[in-house]
């Protein structure tokens, strides 16, 4: 079952410590998973078992995006799982280099 997400929504993994925040998302229903299990709003009481095929890890502060950059998530807490949307793994977006301005 998918869900429409608005920017600022925080999603927690149900199998690891990962938490992500939606920065941009299309206005269509998305199924977001981490470590093979659906992510949810709010931290779970107990963690389920991670799918070993989806255990690449997430890194705090990195942005995650799909191939055509229609959506973007910020990892606000790193963990062991791999994030996927509608079954497709989404990857770390390359950092853009701007000089420090303040």
């Amino acid at each position, binding site marked *: 079952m998918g869900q429409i997400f608005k920017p600022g929504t925080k999603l927690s993994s149900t199998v690891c410590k990962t938490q992500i925040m939606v920065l941009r998302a299309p206005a269509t229903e998305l199924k977001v998973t981490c470590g093979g299990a659906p992510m949810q709003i709010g931290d779970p009481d107990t963690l389920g078992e991670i799918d070993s095929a989806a255990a690449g890890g997430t890194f705090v502060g990195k942005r995650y995006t799909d191939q055509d950059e229609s959506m973007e998530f910020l990892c606000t807490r790193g963990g062991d799982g791999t994030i996927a949307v509608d079954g497709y793994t989404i990857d770390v977006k390359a950092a853009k280099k701007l*000089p420090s*301005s303040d």
Partner: protein
Amino acid sequence: MNIHLILQMAADAMGHREAFVSGSCRGTFSDLADMAKSVAGQVKDGERVGFLNENTPLMPAALFGAALAGTQFVPLNYRLAEGPLNSLLGRTAPALLLTERELGIEGIRPITMLQAGSGDISEMDAPDIDGAIAVELFTSGTTGEPKSAVLKHDNLMAYIFGTVEFMSAEEDEANLIAVPPYHIAAIAGVLSSIYAGRKMVQLPNFTADGWIKLAHAEKVTNAFVVPTMLQRIIDHAGDSLDLPFLRNIAYGGGKMPRQTIEAAMRVLPHVNFTNAYGLTETSATICMLGPDDHRAAYESDDPAIKRRLVSAGQPIPSIELEVRKEDGTVCDAEEVGLVWVRGDQVSGEYKGMGSQLDPDGWFPTKDRGFLDGGGYLFIDGRADDVIVRGGENISPGEIEDVVRAHPAVKDVAAVAVPDVEWGEAVGLAIVCTDDISDDDICALVKSELRSSRLPSLITRMDELPYNETGKLLRRVIRDRLAN
């Protein structure tokens, strides 16, 4: 969104790193997160968090403490006289006010820095409320009663996400913060330093000597200055400045004279300079002239490249910018008009006055300027400062640039003076290091510009009036010349 996330992430991912140095007081990101909780725990329902003090570690703690408590951070200008200050405090009530002063104002509950930082540290969750306001910043009020610019959590987060990578600073990086807490550059400096994981080194009261000594002692790598600070640092340094650790200087908050930035690049050849152009209402930087652009302009013989040294650079990727004529149509390259911007970081809203954005989300900065063929923005000054002589718009900047090039002119300002024949005419206030006659000044202007730019009145001053954050007080000069 809530800006507290920035501190939360920093404390989670690099809690052990040193976050701040202020005199003999030092602390880590974990310490700062605890101090923010201590502030938040003391806020009563409905109260804002005011801050009436120089920079101390309690400034970032109060900024994030307010966010954690779901209320607004309101830094106030501690240099204001009692009357104007009390008026702003009245507009800030009800508020918990961090201050060392004794005040008796209804709705204002003062606590000291010590009290603010030594409260209970209990876990709370920062609220996510749509459209919530994070910061209310009073504008400097150089043209009237100060306005309260409203910056939402979403605006500030958009700025940080658009310009800073999380934990991108090396562990040895330190950012010298010398602008006062009520300046947008101080707020932006706190947010981006913490998100990048860069230590904040606070200098409560700027002096050139104090800045240089602190930069040396704390092995400062980054710094933000306003143009008058940079000029004073250069004046103090003479021909050389021994700051081997310093790598990046960003500047903004006012127009940088070509002579100042050229001297700075000579004295600090190893430093990367970045011009950051922005407004309070745009959550700080919207255009940047980066280090490579500085060097290219400095070294070039091509006049079109060379003049970019005094430009504001190009819009940052997350900002759209247009220069428009009075009738709303977009100007061609080199054509002067009004600067409009659009982007998620742009608030363009004042308390009690609502949003100043047009229906498509564009904000009129009220700055005049033009873009060159390469998309570099040149700021001409505030639209309000234009001199209208017999229906002709004259930019003070073009006259100032010409006069400043005279070797005996240290500083200059062109303002409107009343004129019976033309309505307004050009008045000049100059600061000289040597005697120059009015005739010499007029001859210089005439050699470069049209005769309408000739000053009808020239006064000499020991120094021009600037406020403490480097903003030229043109109104004071206008008043002096009018009398």
